[in-house]
């Protein structure tokens, strides 16, 4: 069975139709890249899948492991194995990063009928992965993303993804705002999560990220639909020709 199956998805925000019949199938173990010009609906797709309230699905369906995602609350989608790495991770002053990570991990475990993680096990787990992503203990004591640089926020997203071990990772423009060193750290974190059971959807405007996270399939999205699908060489082609053929100048 497909890990993610999206059929004829239509969605709008305030009467503004953005997704217009999108189809996508991601199988376990596959990494799909979605590229496309600004305004093509890439980020909307990620928000609709994660369950952001501002968007209204007007037609179509989205199944995760055969379960109807669109019927679920955002927290239930997360517990079912969906993870969205935000393009702009937000700051939550007053909620310590450690408290947040622990609440998230235990809420998901509870929703799946698993026991909560003990404090020592949790601390060990966080320490191990945070170190690898260059996230200091001091940062973990701060409010979620408070005072983090753009790169640190993205690394924090990958840390959450690593701790939560989702079935399907959606990375929304994870490369935006990253310098080349941060891009490497983030990509290594993502690549470490590649596995035969897990699927990934990597949304990006630029080919650069795909040098580091090499996709199995590349899609081009335009006006709310997937208009072209190919292998990783499609990304290189787009890099050379730009999105000129899709109603927009090369970026």
């Amino acid at each position, binding site marked *: 069975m497909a890990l993610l199956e999206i059929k004829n998805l239509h969605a709008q925000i305030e009467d503004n139709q953005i997704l217009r019949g999108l189809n996508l199938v991601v199988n376990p173990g596959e990494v799909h890249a979605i590229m496309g010009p600004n305004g093509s609906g890439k980020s909307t797709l990620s928000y609709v899948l994660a369950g952001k309230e501002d968007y209204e699905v007007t037609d179509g369906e989205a199944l995760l492991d055969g379960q109807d995602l669109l019927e679920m609350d955002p927290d239930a989608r997360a517990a079912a194995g969906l993870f969205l790495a*935000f393009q702009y991770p937000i700051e*939550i002053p007053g909620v310590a990063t450690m408290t947040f990570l622990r609440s998230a991990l235990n*809420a998901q475990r509870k929703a799946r009928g698993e026991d909560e993680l003990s404090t020592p096990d949790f601390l060990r787990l966080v320490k191990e992965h945070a170190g690898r992503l260059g996230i200091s203990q001091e940062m973990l004591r701060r409010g979620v993303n408070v005072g983090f640089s753009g790169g640190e926020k993205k690394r924090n997203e990958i840390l959450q993804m690593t701790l939560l071990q989702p079935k399907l990772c959606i990375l929304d423009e994870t490369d935006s705002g990253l310098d080349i060193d941060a891009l490497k750290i983030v990509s290594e974190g993502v690549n470490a999560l590649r596995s035969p059971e897990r699927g990934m959807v990597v949304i990006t405007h630029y080919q650069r990220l795909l040098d580091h996270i090499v996709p199995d399939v590349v899609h081009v999205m335009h006006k709310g639909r997937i208009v072209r699908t190919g292998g990783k060489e499609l990304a290189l082609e787009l890099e050379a020709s730009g999105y000129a053929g899709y109603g927009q100048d090369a970026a």
Partner: protein
Amino acid sequence: MNVQNQIPRTGAEQALLALLDQRSGADDAALAGRMGELRRAARDAFAANGLPHRRVEEWKYTDLRAILRSSAPLAAPLDAAAEAEGQFRAVTFPGARRILFVNGQLSRAHSDLAGLEPGLTVVPLASALAGGQGAVEKLGTLAPQRYDGVLALNTALAEEGLVIRVEAGAQITRPLHVAHVFTLDAPAATFTRRLLDVGADARFTLVESFQGRDGVAYQVNDALELFVADGAHLDHVRIQEDSAEALHFASLMAETGHKTQFHSFALTTGALASRVSLYGRFAGTHAHVGLRGATLVKGRQHADMTLLLDHAVAHCESRELFKTVLADEARGVFQGKIVVRPDAQKTDGRMMSRALLLGETAEMDNKPELEIFADDVQCGHGATAGELDADLLFYLKARGIPAKEAEGLLIQAFVGEAIEFVEEDGLREAIIARAEAWLKARAI
């Protein structure tokens, strides 16, 4: 003829006037001199002006003529069973010395009055009043110039309370906790008053708590007078968790000397209607005053925090931060007024009130005011009222945290910004835990 006399008296006012009359004979006999004079003046002021109501600016949002429908009788004298129940119900703070008031009366049996730290004296108000002028010479001297009906009633009727003195230079690290518990199953009124006199360069921590029996519409009228002498450092924490049917009226008066530090924090979750009137006066230069509070109310609760800060002298700093969380149809009121007198140059005052409205029918009335008569000052105020940020909630939910828990984390963070100013670790943790308990109770 006094014009005020032509306003028809409410039932509660008539009952209070009768109570004042009944007590006046005993007072006049027992209290000669200044105390007797103070009480007579308070009685006369109440007889002339009655309960504060919405046409009095400071009481615009908290109209006592409407809120106080009837005046409950005074609580019956304590018995051992009530004392034991009070002891059982009162909150404890690890490490603090606790003095217990049950139904507005000192429970000697359950108060830790033995082995007081050197430099600390604690005298029951009744003994201090009977003992004459020396012990109570400062009582009533911080009263505001304008008529305050709640305080007038307290001045005229409070027989119970404490006079606490900290000698100059005494460094007392152990917090003194004055716990108030109401245990009766029928409504009664309590009038309590404390005077705390912190000597020069001394250090002290006062904690006060108010709790009571659920489902009983008892009435609390409490007053606290604080004197912080030059160079002294006072931390004050007030926890008001009265029953959701109770009425709670409090007057806090504070005067700070030269180079003092005074920090006060109020946690408010209780009472159907509550009002705290805080009068602060800077009497010496280079003082720092920090007033903070967290209020969490639900149902049809009404919580009013009203401050009047008088910068009478130069080079003083004041910081106010009040956080109000309103669920259901609850109503919050914040009125904060900073007065900077002509001599109070280099005053640095910052006042902020923030409210979080969790329901469509919740209401917040914010009224910050600055009255500045000096020309070289830095003063600012702000007030906000809003709902939980949908983007923050989505971020938490997208990580698998259920909606109620996500809301709880954000509310905790919201009030946490004020709670973090409580310096003493044990007290701060206890306040955080009590705010958490409120959130849990709401989520069920």
